[in-house]
């Protein structure tokens, strides 16, 4: 192992190179967001420049930016809470009181996630239009909740399953009935799992771009749609596009970083530890 020092340097350089390359578009986006529009499109690209928040100010001035952001927050939070409201009882029932049917129920739920949204775009669109909930937050909240329900149930189930059976049995020996078990044991023990499930759902809702592009136009449109509206004016608004994108991405990126470990466990249904 005489070459271990050289190997270490090589690994370090390679690791950082890969990381920076992968993150480069994001880093560049953030850098561009602090440039003037002219600096943003200068060739060759500027790595040193006078930072300015002018683009942020301008994005902010477009009064509707905040309504998009507000829509994103309301729809993501609403959709996630609604999904949790349906999923927590279901996952509780399946994890702590399994029956012979539990396994097939779970797999069926997973299989509904395989139904591609495009396959049902038309009827959903028509249903929404006849119910007059096209381009409403409520409509999108319902769709998001349903869309994430299988994954949320699965993830909760995985977390609930991790509560050791013996702890609940000890609780029963100590005299905890269904209600006290829930209040003193299950709630505190599963809250972290419920929180990270909610977080994953939030991330998925925040970034969702099929239903939001097709079911909303303005009133209920979230940030994904707002950003998509930048797709037409070529080149001229790089800085503003970057500023708007940065604000749209930043909160969820931080959430994602904070919860990456739980996300792995949840998204892989506990199959990867």
């Amino acid at each position, binding site marked *: 192992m005489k070459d271990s020092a050289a190997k270490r340097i090589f690994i370090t350089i390679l690791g950082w190179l890969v990381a920076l390359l992968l993150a480069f578009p994001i880093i560049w986006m953030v850098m561009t967001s602090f440039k003037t529009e002219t600096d943003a499109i200068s060739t060759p690209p500027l790595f040193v420049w006078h930072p300015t928040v002018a683009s942020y100010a301008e994005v902010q001035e477009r009064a509707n930016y905040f309504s998009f952001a507000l829509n994103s927050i309301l729809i993501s939070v609403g959709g996630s809470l609604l999904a949790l409201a349906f999923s927590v009882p279901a996952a509780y029932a399946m994890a702590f009181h399994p029956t012979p049917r539990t396994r097939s129920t779970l797999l069926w739920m997973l299989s509904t996630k395989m139904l591609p949204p495009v396959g049902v775009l038309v009827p959903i669109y028509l249903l929404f239009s006849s119910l007059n909930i096209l381009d409403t937050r409520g409509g999108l909240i319902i769709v998001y909740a349903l869309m994430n329900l299988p994954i949320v149930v699965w993830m909760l189930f995985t977390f609930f399953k991790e509560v050791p059976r013996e*702890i609940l049995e000890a609780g029963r020996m100590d005299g905890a009935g269904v209600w006290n078990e829930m209040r003193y044991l299950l709630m505190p023990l599963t809250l972290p799992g419920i929180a990270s499930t909610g977080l994953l759902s939030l991330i998925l809702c925040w970034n969702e771009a099929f239903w939001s592009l097709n079911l909303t136009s303005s009133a209920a449109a979230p940030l994904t749609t707002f950003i998509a509206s930048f797709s037409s004016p070529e080149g001229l608004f790089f800085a503003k596009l970057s500023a708007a994108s940065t604000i749209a991405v930043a909160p969820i990126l931080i959430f994602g970083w904070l919860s990456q470990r739980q996300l792995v466990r949840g998204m892989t249904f506990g199959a990867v530890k």
Partner: protein
Amino acid sequence: MATLNLRNIRKSYGPVETIKGVDLDIADQEFVVFVGPSGCGKSTLLRMIAGLEEITSGDLMIDGKRVNDVGPADRGLAMVFQSYALYPHMTVRNNMAFALKLAGVPKEERDRKVDEAARILQLGPYLDRTPKELSGGQRQRVAIGRSIVRNPRVFLFDEPLSNLDAALRGQMRIELARLHEELAATMVYVTHDQVEAMTMADKIVVLQSGVVEQVGSPLELYHHPANLFVGGFIGSPRMNMLPGRIAHVDRTGVAVDVAGGARIVVPAESTNVAAGNPVTLGIRPEAMRPEPAGQLAGEVLLAERLGGLTLLHVTLTDGQVVVVQLEGSDSTRPHQPVRLLVDGEACHVFNEAGRALPHLERHPLAA
């Protein structure tokens, strides 16, 4: 006061019967140990007593009252789990006080009882820690403390020491024995460990495949095993089992021919056997010693010197290997021919069905 009576207790998981009719009486303040090979149903039986597992059929009585349909918390039992099953999000104090809190015991009394249990278990300094800040032995003591505070009629333990290292296990064994005395409670204890079973039990229950093979005091099982299984299971190193034939029988016992004609006379009841019957001769490792006049001939295969004990593995003339346990450090060397003198009084004869022929005299310590 707490007695336990099991009447023809059975347990089925679907079509599979795992406990096949257990009858057992446990007296007040008795320390009863369940032993048996893995999967024989020890935990299942214990959990049925606890109320965590439904009893498929039969009656379970505590103090003479049938409790099959009484919930686990209302049977007046406490259980200590192998994994300890401490509530990870509660402090040691709250872990111990949880049952009392659910039972609506006022705070001062709860604290008093927890402090008392902490004193007995020397947990005082740790009351405000959470379980993950404790060592294995400390967690074990919290689990015991949690059961003590409820003042249960019966303590149930499922392999409580198996997650501890050998030194700590020895220490906790002594502590449990002391607790048993101090609390004057009935205890039912499941273990894999021979030493735990032999040293702590008033009464050992040997289980195999959901059936009770024998119930008795440790020395009773050791000196008077009821059958081949118990003979082989109790005692370490294992009893040597030699196939043989009955040479003749009389009032003083049974003469058995084994391993190339050696004849060993065992003072056992001969009423149900006759000359020529095939039997198995069980010889405890300590019931043999090298002696020029010994009945068995062989060659030393291996000598394991443990300091205080020496284990000789000897290949007999017919190729079978027996283990001989000698006091002290013996000088016998491998490949050396030896003759082994067998103490017939300490031997056991098992008939073709595996049942032991009862000894004519009981061992003085095995009642």
